[in-house]
């Protein structure tokens, strides 16, 4: 019996291990080895700038993460605790900033006069990442067993005490998960820093790009990439230990426990929802306003003489997104199951390695692909590399959204099933899967929108020529003329609408009791 269980885990771990090993670890090792083999110690004159860059990278990431939590708190509270008309719409809308191309948000921020300052960088980071906190945390929060809270109240706890001593400890894994993702995202921030910060505020990510691509200093770029990796790994190591220590097994409700807000809290909920959306809506309003200043949506329906057919780009983007979502969900869910079931060093390293692509510079991975993926089959310019690169970035989202839920399943439940004669796969299918499907859907949704938004993951990959929505927006924005600019804005709004629609559809989806995955 015991042996069979172990083999089951090995089989489950094999797919994520192969995936991350071949598409991440191996290319990374190849490019870093090449860079370091040429490294000559004593790159003088660069240290002071690099120290400044390193320090800026760390502190802006920490501050951005804290600010994102503060900004996301009211909306997270409202959508987790309460059921109200427009809740799904609010969840869809809040995801829109997450997917918009940096260059589009950049122009909106510039139009509002927010640029070339640390404030603008931090504001943009918050703008992009609020969705990560809201979605990751509310998944868990909405399913806290209300009887736990009632028990605390019966014992005389005030509402503040209930939150502080019951809700908050239960939410800690989800808070840590969201925090780690936002931290990694902002730690490796590239486009935002370039557009809104100018040259003086470079992150390590920007500097790696500059050294590798512009100055051909691969050794220095490799050294910086290692510094970045070490920093990211240290943060993740601490995080995964923390998450293991603080995870509490408790009964998760299958459905959500949202209630209609009482008359008194209705105002609070309304303020939280409308207030958050209004603030996030300011830059979006600029885009919508500009997209409506001419017949630009009609222009999107015809084949542009230069950039081609926008509808074909939408088709390409959706195809890539579906593949990326499928890959990320399968890989992520298997990995999460392994991570959640095994405590200790191996599981921790496994978890950490899966998270690393989110904290590794896109240049490093892209150039690693060129070196590593020509054997046994030449995948270097394959069309599959694009969704695979998207999936690499998306897997951490699936893992992070599902691990807290999986950890919360009491081991006794699984043991009970096993005692009743269920094999390991049956246990996984009938116990883990139904409970985790909700969280897996949230992760899958992130994977889908990550792919839609591109996130620069594909910039440094040689790929067959296929235009996606973000690349078309980028092309339109690099061409002068009112129609070019208007179409870019209209297409950005189109991307926003598609994102919101997909997220709302995913939120509505119900995974059956079992098997229909």
């Amino acid at each position: 019996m015991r042996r069979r269980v172990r083999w089951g885990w090995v089989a489950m771990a094999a797919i994520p291990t192969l995936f991350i090993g071949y598409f991440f670890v191996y290319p990374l090792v190849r490019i870093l080895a090449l860079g370091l083999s040429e490294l000559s110690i004593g790159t003088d004159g660069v240290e002071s700038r690099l120290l400044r860059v390193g320090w800026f990278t760390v502190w802006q990431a920490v501050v951005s993460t804290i600010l994102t939590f503060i900004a996301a708190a009211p909306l997270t509270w409202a959508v987790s605790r309460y059921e109200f008309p427009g809740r799904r719409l609010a969840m869809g809308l809040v995801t829109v900033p997450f997917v918009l191309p940096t260059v589009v948000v950049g122009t909106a921020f510039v139009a509002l006069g927010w640029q070339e300052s640390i404030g603008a960088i931090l504001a943009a980071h918050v703008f992009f990442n609020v969705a990560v906190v809201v979605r990751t945390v509310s998944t868990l929060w909405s399913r806290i067993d209300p009887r736990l809270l009632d028990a605390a109240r019966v014992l005389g706890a005030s509402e503040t005490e209930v939150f502080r001593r019951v809700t908050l400890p239960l939410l800690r894994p989800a808070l840590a998960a969201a925090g780690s993702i936002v931290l990694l995202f902002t730690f490796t921030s590239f486009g935002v820093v370039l557009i809104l910060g100018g040259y003086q505020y470079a992150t390590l990510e920007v500097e790696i790009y500059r050294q590798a691509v512009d100055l051909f200093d691969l050794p220095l770029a490799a050294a910086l990439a290692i510094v970045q990796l070490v920093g990211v790994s240290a943060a993740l190591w601490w995080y995964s230990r923390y998450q293991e220590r603080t995870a509490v097994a408790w009964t998760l409700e299958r459905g959500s426990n949202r209630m209609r807000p009482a008359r008194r809290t209705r105002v609070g909920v309304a303020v939280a929802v409308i207030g958050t959306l209004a603030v996030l809506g300011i830059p979006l309003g600029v885009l919508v306003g500009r997209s409506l200043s001419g017949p630009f949506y009609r222009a999107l329906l015809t084949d542009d003489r230069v950039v081609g057919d926008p509808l074909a780009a939408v088709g390409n983007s959706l195809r890539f997104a579906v593949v990326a979502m499928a890959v990320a969900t399968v890989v992520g869910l298997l990995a999460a199951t392994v991570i959640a079931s095994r405590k200790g060093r191996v599981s921790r390293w496994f978890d950490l390695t899966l998270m690393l692509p989110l904290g590794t510079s896109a240049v490093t991975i892209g150039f690693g692909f060129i070196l590593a993926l020509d054997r046994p089959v030449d995948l270097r310019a394959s069309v599959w590399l694009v969704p695979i690169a998207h999936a690499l970035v998306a897997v951490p989202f699936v893992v992070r959204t599902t691990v807290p839920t999986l950890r919360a399943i009491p081991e006794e439940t699984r043991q009970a099933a096993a005692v009743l004669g269920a094999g390991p796969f049956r246990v996984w299918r009938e116990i883990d899967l139904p409970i985790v499907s909700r969280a897996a859907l949230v992760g899958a949704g992130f994977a889908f929108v990550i792919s839609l938004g591109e996130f620069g993951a594909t910039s440094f990959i040689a790929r067959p020529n296929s235009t996606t929505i973000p690349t078309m927006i980028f092309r339109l924005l690099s061409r002068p003329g009112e129609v070019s600019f208007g179409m870019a804005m209209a297409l950005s709004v189109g991307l926003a609408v598609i994102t919101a629609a997909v997220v709302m559809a995913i939120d509505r989806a119900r995974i059956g009791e079992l098997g229909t995955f």
Partner: protein
Amino acid sequence: MRHTRTVATIVIGLALIGAGCGEREQTDTPETLRLIAHESFAAEVDETTFAPFTDETGIEVEVIASDDAGTLVNQAVLSKDNPLADVLFGVDDTFLSRALDEGIFTAYESAHIETVDPDLAHPESMVTPIDYGDVCFNYDKEWFAESGLAVPDSLDQLTDEAYAGLVTVEHPATSSPGLAFMLATIDTFGEERWLDWWSEMKAAGIDIAPDWDTAYYGEFTRYGGPSPIVMSYASSPPAEVIFAEEPLDEAPTGVIEAGCYRQVEYAGILEGTPYPESAGQLIDFMLSVAFQEGIPLTWFVYPANADAQLPPEFVEHTTIPDHPTRMPSERIAENRDEWIDQWVAVMEG
């Protein structure tokens, strides 16, 4: 276990499908040639772009998209031992010397090279010029008409009190036109004096944007920004006419000829290709009049082939500067980092 095997089969199957298009027969003329190019070029290629070439030779052209010119050259260097493609297009003077130092190209003299201005051609024919573009100041005609201010015609004039706060350029470290213009000032004023001009401009409140989009769509008065003079391209005014909402008789923007910098883009045959002859045919095709005449309205740069006719918008609405600045690739490669450091010290110090 059965599940694992099924999944493994699917994964390997997908990998083989993906790889299938990469495998080619070892014959003298291939069925497909691979052309790797930067994103700006690749994004505008459609099925008609290379159709005449395929009709003539029977060879299909598969375009592989890279990112910018720097990434493109890096990818070619990293895959030197097993080239990603047969032909590379899109290397410019900024990155050419690095590419040549690494020996990624094999020399080829195009059959159409005599149609090209000798100034553009590479002396040892390691690469073939396909197009060029001039990075130039653009000005907002309506703004100047209303203000009554004269349009400046020299870089020195821009340091005048009258133009204080009216100029936006891109950052040389983060933007290709930004770098081009920095090189233009070095070429114009010499290494002794160029930083003096910049420090005067700093005093006059010159605005530095991180990239072209932010400068043009964020800072230009034509798009609601504060600067009536921005660093853009000589081809921007015709683009303004072509992509105008209402048909225009005259371009709303104009080109200032002072401080223009000429960027030349080259194609080269990648060393190690099994099909150097067919690759040469592809370069000849890209330099042929038929292909070259499509360049302006597709990529908004100028054809290298002097026999190619320009579309009317490019004749009526812009000027090709008579004496644009340019700099040898080796000199850029050698000094670029130091110049940027010096520039940063003056402008951000």
